[in-house]
């Protein structure tokens, strides 16, 4: 049967010698430790992780990372443009080595995607695009799988047992870096959204103040009026508050202007 795990025959011409492999892995791990300072967002950081994976794993032509995010759509990055096309097929049909790796928490390797009966829809379509080898590595942390790293090659049987071992070693460090990146990005996102929420709340409170002064309402009554206006106008509470404040400013400005023609 084609494409079973560990089934591919090592190609004697496919990879560099063992010492060179170790050096490439060490360089990639060092790369993870030396990510640019203060310049990346999460997507760029993950793209660097994928790029280092290509350097760490002999035979690789491109790599992508897929993160399973609880409150957002899965985040997918790639080191090379062709990886996106392959991953879009995979996620479009819901079948492929990355999906299997993420679901099982185990590495999936194939050297003949076109004939691999584990992925009868994905394999032939990847093969048609000239991608014949895949190595999918789950990103595992203490609580489970947080995503998967997909490494692809155009040539058949590009990834041997040694490539898989190197990939798994790299994936351990990558998973920790990715987990920390998720934490940091989520913390920055929370702070940013809190800032936006406080700013939005300031506009709403100003509008409440306008309505309290104008109609003698309590704060709760004024907020209720704003909510009803928001529903009636089919715009957000924030936009409604902005319009109430703008109208108040404009109303007074009009009163202050001299009549036309004077």
């Amino acid at each position, binding site marked *: 049967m084609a494409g079973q795990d560990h089934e591919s025959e090592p190609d004697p011409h496919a990879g560099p010698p063992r010492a060179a492999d170790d050096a490439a892995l060490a360089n990639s791990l060092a790369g993870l430790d030396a990510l640019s300072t203060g310049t990346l967002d999460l997507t760029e950081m993950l793209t660097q992780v994928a790029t280092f994976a290509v350097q760490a794993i002999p035979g690789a032509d491109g790599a992508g990372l897929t993160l399973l995010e609880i409150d957002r759509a899965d985040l997918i990055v790639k080191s090379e443009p062709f990886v996106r096309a392959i991953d879009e097929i995979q996620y479009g049909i819901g079948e492929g080595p990355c999906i299997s790796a993420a679901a099982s928490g185990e590495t999936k390797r194939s050297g003949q995607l076109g004939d691999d009966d584990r992925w009868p829809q994905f394999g032939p379509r990847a093969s048609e695009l000239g991608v014949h080898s895949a190595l999918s590595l789950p990103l595992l942390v203490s609580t489970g799988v947080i995503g998967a790293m997909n490494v692809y090659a155009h040539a058949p049987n590009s990834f041997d047992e040694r490539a898989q071992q190197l990939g798994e070693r790299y994936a351990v460090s990558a998973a920790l870096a990715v987990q920390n990146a998720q934490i940091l990005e989520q913390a920055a996102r*929370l702070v940013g959204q809190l800032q936006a929420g406080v700013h939005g709340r300031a506009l709403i409170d100003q509008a409440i*103040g306008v309505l309290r002064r104008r109609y003698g309402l309590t704060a709760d009554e004024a907020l209720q009026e704003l909510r009803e206006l928001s529903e009636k106008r089919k715009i957000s509470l924030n936009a409604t508050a902005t319009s109430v404040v703008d109208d108040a400013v404009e109303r007074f400005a009009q009163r202050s202007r001299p009549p036309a023609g004077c």
Partner: protein
Amino acid sequence: VDVPPELIEGLTLLSDALDDPVMDLEAILSVLTDDLVSAIPSYLGLIITLHIDGHPIIVSTLDGASNGRARASLMLSLAPHGPAAAAGSVAFYSGAAGAFIELADDARWIFNLTGPPVLDRHLTGGRNEFEPAGIRGLTAHTDVNQAIGVLIEEGHTPDGARNELARRSARSGRSVPETALQLLDDIAPPDGAAEV
């Protein structure tokens, strides 16, 4: 580690104030908390500090139950975000010494960090005791902005209203939030209030 109930009401209030109807601050905090507990089992909680118009707003998941238990902290200062243009920082706390060393190391790539990650500084100077969990400073912020709204309705521009409030505060010798609260208490009944 759960999101404290005292915090949920304030987060809901701020989520409602966002223009994005699907953005849920409690959900973001829950995911962050889960990720932190997964990465750092000794994680205790966090304190976020926002500086808005010179007044701090503090969001804390920590309470007295964590008093004396913090052995490590990591503070990240983040650049102003969006129209709020307010600086912010987040400090994580853990019950295990050295728990944040790797996270601090990985934090250097964050694009909007305004200074280096600070490890354990929050544990000095008797800062190992925490006030109740919740959002502090939001009430004063609310009073100030409602008072600005009152002054806008009385004919001030938004900037002029802010200046007028500061002027009244200086004249009375009270803080700006106290002055705002007094102004709100003194709202005169409108003449012939109309329908909204």
